[in-house]
């Protein structure tokens, strides 16, 4: 299996990549290639031009801007796992990256590609929703920022316009009285999620001041379980409330049946992953 023919470009800068993307008909960005190349082999994608970002050092690297963690779009999963800054400022992302695919895939697959691809099965989108991340995007008209919330529009459909490149992901800190929970159910090591749930919350005393719940692979795109968030916000979360929230999570789910399970199973697993993630987040916030 090989992709159909295309012209290959090695841009010298992000500006150059944007130029190539806009000057060439039917051009696509190549990041880690671990979603795009498989799709091209199957002819689900047949771009006429591939613009390879791998040589661009400016898209790599992880830094702090104040207390915001800034991650270059071309940072690989294994670079996230190995980063002291990420371990210290957002250990959630280390947990997530460790459950993405396998070592070889993690050496190539990038966090920007995982987000930009718009696959509901990818793990980072729902995590970015729960973290309230922001994406830095460059296009022919300059730079703009877009919140993760509202970015994921449908399967393979995001807020990225044609001709734009995602350059950086900005992650605000989880407050000191906050916590996170991440649970991904998969059939085997290296698999995509049957269902996944990420919870980030902040407490005020015993009461839940803020909570965001992101769900993986149970809808055409990564979604937030907003009704469940609304129920829990302002409350002292106990098991009875967690049960009610789990019901609301199930109502939010609209998964596709596939080899990982039928609709009912995936829906119930999304609820169970959320129960666990809420408990984990509360435990972390309390400690």
């Amino acid at each position, binding site marked *: 299996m090989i992709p159909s023919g295309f012209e*290959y470009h090695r841009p010298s800068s992000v500006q150059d990549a944007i130029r190539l993307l806009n000057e060439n008909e039917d051009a696509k960005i190549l990041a880690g290639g671990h979603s795009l190349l*498989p799709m091209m082999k199957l002819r689900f994608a047949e771009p006429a031009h591939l613009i*390879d970002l791998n040589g661009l050092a400016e898209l790599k690297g992880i830094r702090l801007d104040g207390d915001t963690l800034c991650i270059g779009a071309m940072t690989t999963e294994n670079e996230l796992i190995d980063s002291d800054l990420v371990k210290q400022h957002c250990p959630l992302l280390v947990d997530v990256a460790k459950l993405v695919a396998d*070592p070889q895939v993690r050496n190539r697959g990038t966090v920007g590609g995982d987000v930009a691809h718009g696959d509901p099965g990818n793990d980072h989108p729902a995590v970015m929703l729960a973290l309230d991340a922001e994406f830095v995007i460059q296009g022919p008209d300059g730079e703009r920022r877009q919140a993760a919330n509202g970015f994921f529009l449908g399967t393979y459909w995001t807020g990225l316009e044609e001709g734009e490149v995602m350059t950086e992901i900005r992650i605000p800190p989880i407050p000191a009285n906050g916590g996170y929970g991440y649970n991904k159910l998969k059939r085997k090591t290296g698999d995509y999620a049957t269902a996944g749930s990420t919870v980030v919350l902040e407490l005020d005393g015993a009461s839940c001041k803020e909570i965001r719940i992101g769900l993986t692979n149970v809808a055409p795109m990564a979604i937030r379980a907003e009704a469940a968030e609304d129920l829990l916000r302002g409350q002292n979360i106990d098991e009875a409330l967690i049960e009610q929230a789990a019901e609301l999570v199930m109502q939010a789910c609209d998964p596709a049946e596939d080899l990982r399970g039928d609709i009912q199973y995936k829906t119930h697993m999304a609820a169970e992953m959320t129960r666990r993630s809420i408990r984990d987040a509360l435990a972390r916030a309390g400690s």
Partner: protein
Amino acid sequence: MAKQHISFSLNGEQIDALVEPRELLVHTLRETLNLTGTHIGCETSHCGVCTVDLNGVSVKSCTVLAMQAHEGEVTTVEGLANGELHAVQQAFIEEHGLQCGFCTPGMLMRAQRLLQENPDPSEEEIRWGMAGNLCRCTGYQNIIKAVQSAAKKLQQEA
């Protein structure tokens, strides 16, 4: 699409090749450079038999374009033995880490890189670190033993 010139280091030797942009690295290695030690299994980035080192990390060469090796450094299973067998190769023989042998080139390439990343891995770490390589024959137990045995040998040598 016209063929393009690439140049890279392959098992320590500088190589020039003409490749189509759509050509995958594994095909260039096997078909143009006649190094058939790197196998093709699934072709869908799952099985790991096509694993090689590219610029010091393990990659699945069925999911990397040959163009992306340009000016880089590639090591394949043919580059492991240096006069005598590499410690992981010897250990796979001694511990019966293979049956049909089809997965073995990928297993060896991943194992030698894993032991550079983590010279003294626990069994759990070996399983996690080798998770991108599938074997339909052995049940993995002897592969794990082989990696453990190679780790010991390499540490004694170090």
